[in-house]
Every structure is written in C-alpha cells, then in structure tokens.
C-alpha cells in the first residue's frame, strides 16, 4: 500500500513489473517507478502488433537520433554528433543534444531511440554516482559501460533501440566503449554509430592517425559529421564537438552544418584556384581541362547558393580557414 511516496528511485535498478489491476491501486500504478509491461502473453511483441494494421499517420513514431562518432588519439578522445531527431518522415527536432553529459568526466552519445538513450544514460549517471558514494572513488569507464550493457540486456528483444558510445578518462587513461541495445559491448579506438555512420567512417578512416594534433582531430571529426549530414537524409542540423581530456570533458563547438559546408566549399575553391594557377590557365578553363571530369552537380548548387545568399537563408560565404 502506498502510504508514503515510493522510494523506488533509490533502488539499484528499474525492475520490470506486470501491472495487475487486482493488485495495484491506480495510485500505486501511477506513482511506481517500475517499468510497466502490458498484460498480454507476449509483451515483447505488443507494441509492434498494436500498429500492425494502422495507417502511417496513426502509427506511433519515436524520436530517433542518427550520426555520431568518437575516436581516441594521442590527445584524448574527440566525440562529434549531429542534432537531427526524425520521427518517421517528420523532423522532430533539429537541435537535439546527442552528447549526453553523464558526469563531468564521462560522456555518452545518443543514436537510435532518443528516449531510450536519454533515460538509460541518465540512469547510468545515477548508478555511477552511487558507486562513487559507496566506494569513495570514481567508477572506471569500463565498469560504467558494463553497467549500461547489463541493464539493457535485461530488456533484450523488447524493442529498445540504443547505440551509444561511453567515453571518459579514468586512472588508466582514456577509454571508449560501444554499447548497444542488443547487449554488444566493444572496446575500441574509433567508432561511428547511426544511419549516417558509413559516410562518417569514410572520411574518418581516410584522415585518422594516432599522432594527430588536437586541432587537426577536431577538424577531422567535424568534417566527418558534416559529410554524413550532407548525404544522409536522417542526419542534419548542428554539429557538436566535445574533447575528453585528463581532467574531464570540454565542449569545443556547436556549428550549423551549413557553416561547415561554406568552409569546405571555400577551401575547395582555394585548391582549385591554386591548381589552375599552377597549370597556368584560368579557373574555368582549368576545371574543364581537369581530366575531363563530369560536370559537378554541386556547381548548380553554387548558383543556387548565390541567389539564396542574397535572400538571406544560407550563411554568408566563409573565407577558408
């Protein structure tokens, strides 16, 4: 009987419970923090079956997150993410914070279901704090990622969608683990997760080296996400970059992807102009002579950009950095 407010939130885990009307009063049902299961034979299939015959507009869509990446290098860990949350075809938000600050020295990323990631990573933060209070020392990154992996393994098969990277710098150095809702937990130096991850991997793998400088690493991370947002429809918005150092993490930047687009374009133009100058030809003739390359589809976009810039809905052209 709920005579006092439930203190379930202090227990070490959220437990599954069958909400049985005969046993729980509405007050208990509504105020319990246990994760409720539908009272059917196969709860894992319930949500999928509920919308099996539904039209698209009636279906429940949950917010999904998309391109994230993180890598370890000599200067620590860089994490970069986009900020688009899609709900089916609709863009639920263009400003989602997909890097979750679990505590001042641990970061988690969000890919897959937005609610699943935010909820379980917040729960992870709670358990890391409990560990710290009980053991008088900070939890290691490996232990934190294992806590998360074991938690979601308890819900395996029930439809959780979560692909996250847990990263931090503990007493044994910087560590990066990939954890997902299937129960996978992998330690590694370089991961990219989400629908745009293939695009990000291409750019990231091409430019990565352990001995990179910090600025170079940040630029590489930002460019990788930019290319993913450019090509993946479900990625976009703002590119957020964080750096994990020995004392904790620090937020580096938050740039609209169009700003990075202008930077990349300006750099390419510089390179093209330099090539043309070296070949001793004008820029236009230089492009035409350059190995008979097929007309660049983005050149049509340039004229579009010029008129759009005069209307004011794209960022002003940047000078190459």
């Amino acid at each position: 009987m709920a005579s006092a407010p439930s203190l379930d939130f202090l227990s070490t885990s959220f437990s599954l419970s069958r909400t049985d009307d005969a046993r729980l009063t509405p007050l208990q049902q509504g105020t319990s923090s246990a994760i409720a299961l539908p009272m059917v034979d196969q709860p894992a299939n319930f949500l999928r079956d509920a919308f099996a015959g539904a039209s698209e507009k009636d279906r429940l869509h949950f917010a999904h997150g998309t391109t994230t990446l993180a890598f370890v290098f000599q200067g620590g860990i860089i994490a970069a993410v986009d900020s688009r949350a899609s709900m089916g075809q609709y863009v639920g938000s263009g400003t989602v914070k997909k890097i979750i600050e679990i505590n001042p020295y641990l970061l988690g990323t969000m890919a897959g279901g937005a609610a699943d990631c935010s909820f379980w990573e917040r729960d992870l933060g709670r358990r890391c704090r409990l560990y710290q209070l009980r053991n008088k020392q900070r939890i290691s990154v490996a232990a934190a990622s294992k806590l998360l992996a074991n938690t979601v393994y308890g819900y395996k098969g029930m439809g959780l969608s979560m692909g996250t990277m847990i990263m931090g710098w503990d007493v044994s150095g910087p560590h990066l683990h990939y954890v997902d809702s299937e129960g996978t937990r992998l330690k590694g130096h370089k991961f990219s997760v989400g629908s745009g991850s293939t695009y990000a991997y291409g750019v990231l793998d091409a430019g990565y080296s352990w001995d990179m400088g910090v600025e170079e690493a940040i630029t590489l991370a930002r460019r990788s996400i930019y290319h993913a947002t450019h090509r993946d429809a479900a990625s976009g918005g703002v590119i957020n970059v964080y750096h994990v150092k020995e004392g904790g993490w620090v937020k580096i930047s938050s740039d609209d992807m169009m700003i990075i687009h202008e930077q990349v374009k300006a750099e390419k133009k510089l390179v093209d102009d330099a090539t043309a100058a070296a070949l001793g030809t004008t820029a236009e003739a230089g492009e035409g002579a350059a190995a008979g390359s097929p007309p660049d589809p983005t050149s049509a976009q340039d004229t579009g950009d010029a008129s759009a810039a005069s209307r004011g809905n794209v960022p002003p052209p940047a000078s190459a950095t």
Partner: protein
Amino acid sequence: MDALGLLRPGASVSGLPAAHTPGAATGFALGDHAGRAQAAPAAEPGVVASTASGPLQRRFQPYQNNGGTVLAVAGKGFCVVASDTRLGLGYSIPSRKVSRILKMTDKVVLASSGMQADMLTLHKTLRMRLVQYQQTHQKHMSLTAASQMLSNMLYTRRFFPYYTFNVLGGIDENGEGWAYGYDAIGSHEKVSAVCSGTGQTLIQPVLDNQIEFKQQWGAPKVDLSLEATVELIRDAFTSAGERDIYTGDFVEICKITKDGVDVEEFQLKLD
C-alpha cells in the same frame, strides 16, 4: 444478433458487425489476419473465414487517435500554451469542447494531444504526483522538475506507451519562459516554441520561422511580446483549422506570467 456473428470476418471485439472497412481511421485493430482485406464485409452469418486467409484472431485494441493540436511558445518572462478542443474519431466529432490542458502549478501548464483516454489517465496521474511532491517537499514543482518527471513517467510506459503528444510550458525558477516538447515515450527537449498533434506539420514551420528565426542569417532576431505571440498563435490555429480536419471548434489559450495563469478562449470554424 446471430450466434456466429463473432466469427464473421471483420467482426470487432465488441461483437457488433464491423461497419468500417479495414484500416479506416476509426481505430486500428490488432491481429487482423491476412485475408481480412479481401473478405467481403457482407459475408453471411455462419461463414467462417476461409482457411486460405489464415486463422481469425482478435485481440485487445488499445489505441485510437482523437486528433487535436497543441503548442507552447515561450518568450521573455512568459509562456503561452494553447490547444484546440475538438475530439475527433474517424470522420466523426464526438465532442467540440474537450480540454487538453492541465494547469499543473501557477507556473507550469501541460497540453496533450493524441488519445483522449490516455491523456486523461496521464493528467490524473500527474495530479497525484504533484500533490505528493507538494506534501513531501513543502513547495510546488518547478518547471524543470516537472519536465523531468513527465519524461520519466512516459518512459515507465515504454512498452505500452501513453498515446499522447505532450507539450509543457511555463516559467522556470529564474523567471524565464521555456517550452518542452515530448515524443510518446518521454524524449524531451527544452525549446522556445513547439507544436504537437495532427496540425504539427502545418504549424511548427511557422513557429520555426517567426519565433526561432531558423536559417535567417541576415535578419535580426526579434523578441515577440505576449500580445504579439498570442496573435501569432490565433493565426496559426485559424490556418491549421482550415487544412486539418481534426483541428477546429475552439482554442484554449493559457498565458503564463509571473502573475499566474490566465486562460482565454476563442472560436474557430465549426466545420
């Protein structure tokens, strides 16, 4: 009613013959077998579904979409939460005046669209939690606390969600106005302007343009006053009511300032 009526293809759980064709907007049935779409609605009593179409299953139909649009727009020192009051069910309008708004405290207001039954249960549970918080902590819930609590409550129903699309608006402890948008299982984000429900795709772009000045690089951002915000919201609902069949009838507008919550209502087209 014939005894074998329940076995007819297309029979509903309540035993009445299904008047609607499969997949109509009156609701979505669970476990319809593959042959239902091809079965003639006027099948004779006693004719069991053909074996070629598979076994006839009937399960609990938990959800329906009652439509409606809700929004919350925050400004300097105020927040406006508004919703229409039409209850739709398929092509019918069972009610023109249902309230989708819950005044949680003097500084926090919630509006929920989606399924009316889930909205009522969610609001009832929230009211219980508000009273518990008030009695335990001797103070009203703040906007940030309420926003996190709603997210957690929605997530505890992760595997049998509340079919509700919520927006929360109010004044935080610093006197700033903020709005929160939620998905069905509790993913939430603090924003300046958010719209949910059947008119979401019609109104959200207008809010992005006029309140957030999204992708307008040259234009200076203007802070709208409370009156200008309410005018914008009226126009938004009027236009959404033209193009969305589930939005219309009346609009309830709650203006939250440091002086409390002021509710006004205005009428939309009743068609």
